[in-house]
């Protein structure tokens, strides 16, 4: 049985990563904040009596389910929006919009910051966009396995799939990320250089 302090410490430890992870999935900061808040409350209300060692798995499970609920609601909302917007069609020139191109364009204007800092923030932004572009299951596997530092079995439990699938998703995710980064002119060695000092 764990205390409120342990719960607070755990949430403080994971909340930022949880937010980022959710934001990559839903691509909306406000929605991501709501989802993380919901997940925190659910964990506190339903599982606060569980041992603190179970929190990471439980929280990830709740977070994934809350995201799934969000997607379901979005799907219904989008269906209505599509139906309604078919009556009033406007100019949809933004369909061909590539966020990576926008990012590169925007960052070139930011000449006030020191060069290294700019380069680093650009790399981070490219990684984040690349993560957003990954298929959902690959992103989930990558984030849980490498960022949340879960082992293959834990990741499989949270994702509700086999360990073999987790390995496949992870491998594909890393290769896809490496490819996207390379296309943007970032190689692994440069990635290491532009990262924080160990």
């Amino acid at each position, binding site marked *: 049985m764990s205390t409120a302090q342990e*719960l607070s410490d755990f949430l403080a430890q994971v909340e*930022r990563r949880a937010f980022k992870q959710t934001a990559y999935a839903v691509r909306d900061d406000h929605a991501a904040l709501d989802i993380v808040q919901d997940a925190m409350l659910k964990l506190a209300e339903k599982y*606060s009596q569980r041992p603190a060692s179970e929190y990471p798995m439980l929280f990830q499970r709740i977070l994934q389910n809350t995201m799934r609920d969000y997607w379901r609601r979005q799907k219904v909302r989008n269906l209505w929006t599509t139906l309604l917007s078919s009556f009033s069609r406007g100019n949809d020139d933004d369909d061909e919009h590539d966020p990576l191109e926008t990012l590169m364009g925007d960052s070139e204007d930011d000449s006030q910051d020191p060069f290294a800092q700019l380069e680093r923030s650009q790399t981070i932004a490219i*990684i984040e966009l690349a993560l957003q572009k990954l298929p959902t299951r690959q992103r989930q596997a990558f984030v849980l396995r490498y960022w949340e530092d879960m082992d293959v079995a834990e990741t499989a439990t949270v994702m509700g799939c086999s360990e073999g699938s987790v390995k496949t998703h992870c491998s594909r995710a890393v290769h896809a990320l490496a490819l996207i980064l390379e296309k943007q002119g970032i190689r692994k060695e440069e990635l290491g250089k532009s990262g924080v000092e160990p």
Partner: protein
Amino acid sequence: MRQEKDTAKEIVRMLDESVEHMDARIVAKLADSRYRAVAAVNAHAMQIAGAPGLLRLFSDYIHHHRALMMSAVVLCTILMAFVLTQQFYGQEAMEQGDAFLLASELPPQAYLDKGFNTWLEQASQH
């Protein structure tokens, strides 16, 4: 495999850095959410601590078996509705029976007499 892990590590290192430099407003909102979650736990703990022994045990049991309790409540409601409906229906049937007997030209004893129906049929045939 080794190269794959190294690449993943480098990406994660960059992601960790992005987390360190998150927007202050988002960080504040996340902290607020955390306080709310912990406050919910504290409020529940206070509620339970304030209750005497048996009540606390009961409250704890209900908290941990919420789904079961909800099912029990729904079942009880259905059962009560069934019993009440049956009672009203039975009462109505009895009232109708009484009204029929009172309004009938024959005395109630005539309906209890088993030979009466046979006699009535034979009498009506002649």
